[in-house]
Structures are given as C-alpha cells and as structure tokens.
C-alpha cells in the first residue's frame, strides 16, 4: 500500500514537472509555422465552402425570379441571406481558430505560469472572437 502511494506521488511529480516546460525555439518556430499553414488552409476551405453555398442559394433566387413567383423570390432571398451570414460567420470562426492555434504554439516558448497565462489569454481571445461571430450573424 505504502509503495503504491509512493509510485502515485512519483508519477504525479513527473507529470507536474513535464507540464508547462518550454520547447526549444526551433521546435516552437516549426510548430508555429505548421499551425499557421493549417490555419490558412482551413480559412481558405471555409471561404470556398461559403462561395459555393452562396452560388447555390443565389441560383435558387434567380430561378424563382425566372418563374415570376414573388413569394418564392422573397423566401429564397431570405434563405440566401441566411446562407451568406452563415458562411461569413464560419470564415470568421475559422480565422479565429487559426489565430488561436498559432497563439497557443507561440506560448510553448514560455515556461511555467507564463505559459499557462499565455494559453489562457489565447483561449479567452478565441472565445471572444467566436462570440462576436455569433452576435454579428
């Protein structure tokens, strides 16, 4: 029993010392660059998705106009605006995620509580950006 407790304590101590240790600058730079590239790809994907969705929604409006159906035009136009807002929101969130990923990787250069504070700040900024994207919809 005594031995088990000692082992658990040792394991906890190892974990605590392993946490919040700074990474070597070269490794941080590599991870930041990787995060930046992934983020840019995600933002580009979100833009492409939004463009495609908008084109589809606009076509529905154009079809309703061609049918001279005023009610359908109003409905499709309303839906197209929703699609546009949704796409815009997704792009903003993808950008916020990309920024967050880069910010967190940069925090890895710091150590201990400085690293934790850095990550907390990045998380808060990300939450605020997501909230703003929802409000602006």
């Amino acid at each position, binding site marked *: 029993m005594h031995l088990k407790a000692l082992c658990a304590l040792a394991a906890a101590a190892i974990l605590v010392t392993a946490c919040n240790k700074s990474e070597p600058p070269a490794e941080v730079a590599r991870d930041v660059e990787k995060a930046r590239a992934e983020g840019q790809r995600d933002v580009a994907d979100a833009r492409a998705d939004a463009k495609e969705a908008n084109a589809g929604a*606009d076509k529905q*409006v154009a079809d309703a*106009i061609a049918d001279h159906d005023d009610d359908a035009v*109003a409905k499709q136009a*309303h839906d*197209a*605006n929703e699609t*546009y807002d949704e796409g815009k929101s997704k792009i903003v969130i993808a950008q916020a995620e990309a920024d967050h990923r880069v910010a967190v990787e940069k925090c890895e250069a710091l150590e201990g509580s400085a690293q934790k504070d850095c990550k907390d700040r990045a998380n808060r900024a990300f939450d605020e950006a997501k909230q703003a994207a929802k409000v602006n919809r």
Partner: protein
Amino acid sequence: MTHILTRALLVAAALGCTVMAGCTTDTERTTSTRQPAAARHPAPAPAGEPAAADQQTAGDAVDDAVVTAKVKARLVDDEVTKAYQINVETFQGTVQLSGSVDSEEARSRATELARNVGGVKDVKNSLQVRRSDG
C-alpha cells in the same frame, strides 16, 4: 576602271536595298503591334443604346435582380426598416435605395443592411428623411 566603278555601284545598290529592307521590317513590326484603328476608336453606341461602360450582359442583369431581391429581403426582415416602403434598384452590383423614412437611424440602418448582402459592391442611399409633424 569602268568595270571597277560598275562593281562599286552594284555593291552600293545592294547595301542600300538591305538597309531599306531592314527599315521596312522594323516599320511593319511596329505597325503590327498597334491595335487596328477600329479597336483604338470604337464606334459610338447607336442612339438609344447605353454607352460601353453602361452595357450590361444578361448574366449581370440576373445577378442584379438577385441582389435586389436579397436587399429587399434584408430590409423586410429588419425591425427598423420593415415599416418603410424602400425602393431598391441594382446596377452592376451598386444598390440604389430611394423613398422616404422618418429617421436618420432608419436611413443609415438601410445602408448597413444593404452593404451586408452578398454581391453588393456599393450602396447609394437616396432615402429622404421626412420628419413627421407632431
């Protein structure tokens, strides 16, 4: 002596031809890179038809109709602007708002809403603010 003179004249004539031919080629090359006169000076649009800058293709017209419908939907969906009869016209992505509203808030809200529609390049707000008397 006469023979030498004749040969000298022949050589001079040949040189002259070569220089002239070179000049002609340069001139032709220069001319060929220029646009034809018709392209440089396009014929004016026939009377009653819009000038080239104002011309709109069928595709543009459809796009503009879609933009107009979307702007109208935004205005109708909004709490501030839905109370007004706002005319919307779109030409090549530029939206023109006209009619009247009774507050500056409604006027600027209409601009903001129209700007936030996909495909809108610019908004020209001609809305009149009509103050209600009492």
